[in-house]
Every structure is written in C-alpha cells, then in structure tokens.
C-alpha cells in the first residue's frame, strides 16, 4: 500500500508475503484514483489473468452518500497483486467481491484498507481464494473506524480453499476501531474441498475434475454475485479453475 518510491521489504506488513523479486520489476506500481462525488454511484472490475506479472494500486474516495462496487479477479499471473485503499464519507457504501485463483508457483495477493472516516458508512468485503500446487494466496484486509465514525457497519468474509497440501493461504483480517456504537464482523476460514461432497457428485457420474470444478465454481460465486458483469467474471474464473484442475 506504500506509495514511497523505495521498494518495500518484508518488514512492511502490506508486503510481507509478496514476491519481492517480481514486484521489483513492476515497481513503482501504477496507481489508479477513483473519486465518487456525494450521492453518486460507481462500479468497476479489475481482472488480472494475463501471462505477465501485474500489480495495481487502486485508491477510492467516496464522498458522503456515495456508493462503489469493486470486483477483482486475480488469476493466472506468476505474480498478481491488487492493493485497494478506500475512504468512506458519511453514509457511503463500499462493496468488494474478489476471487484469487493460483496454482504452480504463482503468488496472488489482495491487500485492502477500508477507512470509515465518517459516521454511518457501510463496507462489505467478500474474498475467495482457490490455491493449488505450490501457490501462495494472500489477503490482508484492514478496516479502520475513525474516531466519531459511529453507526459504522463493516463486514469481511474471507475464505480460502487449498487444493493441495503444498499450497499456502495467508488471510489476515484486521480491525482498528476508534469509535463506539459500530458493527464490525469478520469471518475467516481456510479449508479443503469437502470429500463427502466430492464423492457424492462423482457417484452420480461426474469425473473428479468436473466435480471439483462444480464445487469450486460455487465457492467463488459469492465473490461475483450481483456484479454487472457477473457472467463474464464467472467465465474468466472458470477458465482459471480449469487450468488448475
């Protein structure tokens, strides 16, 4: 998340699990600024699915009552990093739906900092990671509730699925709350595909890869549900999943 021009080190929490060698070739990371005026709405989708490494910093400022819907698909690059910093004004709303799909030696990471600067803002973040091979998938999500930002409602749902025991998932939800009367919830889980469910699907005739794909499709669906381009995102995610299985 640092905007400093010096390359970060592992001591920098936001880069603790990064592929620093890959990051160096991308440094400084291009920054995109999004500004949504009071009462306005916006949405965008970022997909990293090329063969090349990619990193992006996205900085979103939501004025009072503004709303933003951000969807991320981080899949298919040797190194893919998306960092998002959001500042919510009074009564603003922010939703993040993100999926990371990585296999082989890939490193995928999403780092967010959501700042509830004023009262009554709502943020929700859904992040789903599917990791195979020796891939590393990281989600670092910080929610900051500023002094006086009463009536804040912040929610994080973080889940990672490991297809192989050799893959690594890092998930770190972080709350910094300086106000009373706020609602902040987070759920975080790392698991494997349900073996009983897999056998059930296979017993009906689905080959193992198809059965896994169906379950993983369902797993990441929550990240894209309700997106304007839900179908295209799902298609792109399925392609990435197929490459993993």
């Amino acid at each position, binding site marked *: 998340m640092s905007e400093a021009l010096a390359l970060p080190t592992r001591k920098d929490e936001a880069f603790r699990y990064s592929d620093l060698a890959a990051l160096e070739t991308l440094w400084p990371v291009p920054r995109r600024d999004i500004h949504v005026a009071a009462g306005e709405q916006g949405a965008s989708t970022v997909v990293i699915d090329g063969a090349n490494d990619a990193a992006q910093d996205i900085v979103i400022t939501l004025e009072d009552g503004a709303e933003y819907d951000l969807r991320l698909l981080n899949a298919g690059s040797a190194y893919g990093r998306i960092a998002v910093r959001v500042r919510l004004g009074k009564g603003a709303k922010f939703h993040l739906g993100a999926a990371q799909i990585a296999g082989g030696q890939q490193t995928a990471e999403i780092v967010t900092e959501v700042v509830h600067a004023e009262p009554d803002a709502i943020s929700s973040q859904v992040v789903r990671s599917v990791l195979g091979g020796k891939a590393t998938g990281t989600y670092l999500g910080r929610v900051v509730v500023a002094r006086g930002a009463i009536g804040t409602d912040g929610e994080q749902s973080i889940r990672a699925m490991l297809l192989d025991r050799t893959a690594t998932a890092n998930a770190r939800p972080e709350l910094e709350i300086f106000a009373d009367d706020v609602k902040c919830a987070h759920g975080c889980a790392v698991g494997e595909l349900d073996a009983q469910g897999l056998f059930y*699907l296979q017993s009906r005739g689905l080959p193992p890869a198809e059965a896994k794909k169906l379950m993983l499709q*369902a797993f990441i669906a929550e990240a894209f549900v309700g997106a304007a381009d839900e179908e295209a995102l799902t298609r792109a995610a399925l392609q990435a999943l197929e490459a993993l299985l």
Partner: protein
Amino acid sequence: MLKIENLQATVADKPILKGLSLTINAGEVHAIMGPNGAGKSTLGYTLGGRPGYEVTGGSATLDGADLLAMEPHERAAAGLFLGFQYPVEIPGVSFVQFLREAANAQRKSRGQAPLSGGEFLRLAKEKAALLRMDMEMLKRPVNVGFSGGEKKRAEMVQMGILDPKIAILDETDSGLDIDALRICGEGINAIMRKSDKAVLLITHYQRLLDYVKPDFVHVLAGGRIVKSGGPELALELEEHGYEAVAA
C-alpha cells in the same frame, strides 16, 4: 447382473466385510437387512467406490465388468446408482445444473449424444412429478435446507433421471414419514421394477418392503450374509429379531 464373491473390505484398517457373496439377476429386487454395525452401509459404499473403503479381497462385477477396478464416476456410467442414507448438502450448486452435467458425463462415456437443456428439463420434470416433487426445489442448491424426507425423494428423482441398471439404496426409508415412504416406494417400483433392472435395498425395517416387494431377503451379520430367503424372512425378522433368526 451384479455378482459379488467373497468380498472383503476394511475401513480405517478395521475389517468390516468378511467374505460377502451375493448374486443379483436382472429383474430382481433384493433386500439386505441386519443389525447396526453388520456392514450394510459399508457394502453400499464399497460397491460405490467411496475413498477410505478398501477392498482387501474378493470381487464384484456388473454385467461381467470389474466394478472394483473402476472410479466412482465410471461405476455410475456402467449403470450403478447408490442411494445415500445421508444425502450430502452442496451449497451453491443447483440440482438441475449438477444432474444435467452428471447425466451428460454418463452419456458421453457411453458414446451417447448429450441431452439438450430442454430435453433434460422435460426428463427432470417427469421424474420429479413421479416423486411428487416441485421442480422449483430442483433449482435450489443440492439438498441444502431439504428435510430428511425431501432429501430421500430427491435421491429417487436423481435415480429416475440417471436411469441406472442397478440401484443400491442405503436406508432410503430412514427419516421418512408414512406418506413419503409410500411415495418413495412407488417411485422405486416405477423406475426400477423392470425386467432389465435390479435393486438392492439396504434396510432395517419391514415397512419399505411393504411397498417394494423383494424377491429375496438376506440377513447380513458380522460382515457376511448369514441367511437368505424369500419375502417371508423379512417378516420373520420383524417378529423375532435378528438374533433369534440369524443364530
């Protein structure tokens, strides 16, 4: 059709099936009854190929093909259907999507053309109606939020759609109220009581057999079949208990 010879299987290194032999011909309905822990569910899972159920001896063939050498999905394509005692909930995956993919995967491996969306929905509707199930329920995620009875009826709808040669139904009657029991029983008869199909019912109780009349009844105890007979054997078990009859 299904020929099981001296089948031995272990679960977590513990021997459960200890030399089970059973032959089921086309057109027959067999019932296996037995006390808890006799190995009834293990028999179903072993024939279905569930991971963790290790065959340590014997054989099982379906129309001459070695069932035990096949992957679970290949067994399904070969014509085996396993009705689960506890159908698994799979959030986010709808019945119709899953069943269409499963049916078409089976058809593909048999060299048949896939069912179109319309063809599949017509088939699903027909089988759902047979089990008095609302099609809307099949648009929901697999078994999620279904009552015990609805899960079992959904199993029978799946059986109807997948149209197997042989169905092994593990305690399909458990968790059913009287009406659902009758509906499931009639469904089994409508789908499977045919000269080219066969059924193996695994059950504790006589009550399902009132609807699906078996040609043969077997008592499973200690991992092997200890007694076989006609439908009267089930009544005898109901009256006197396993210990008295199988002793």
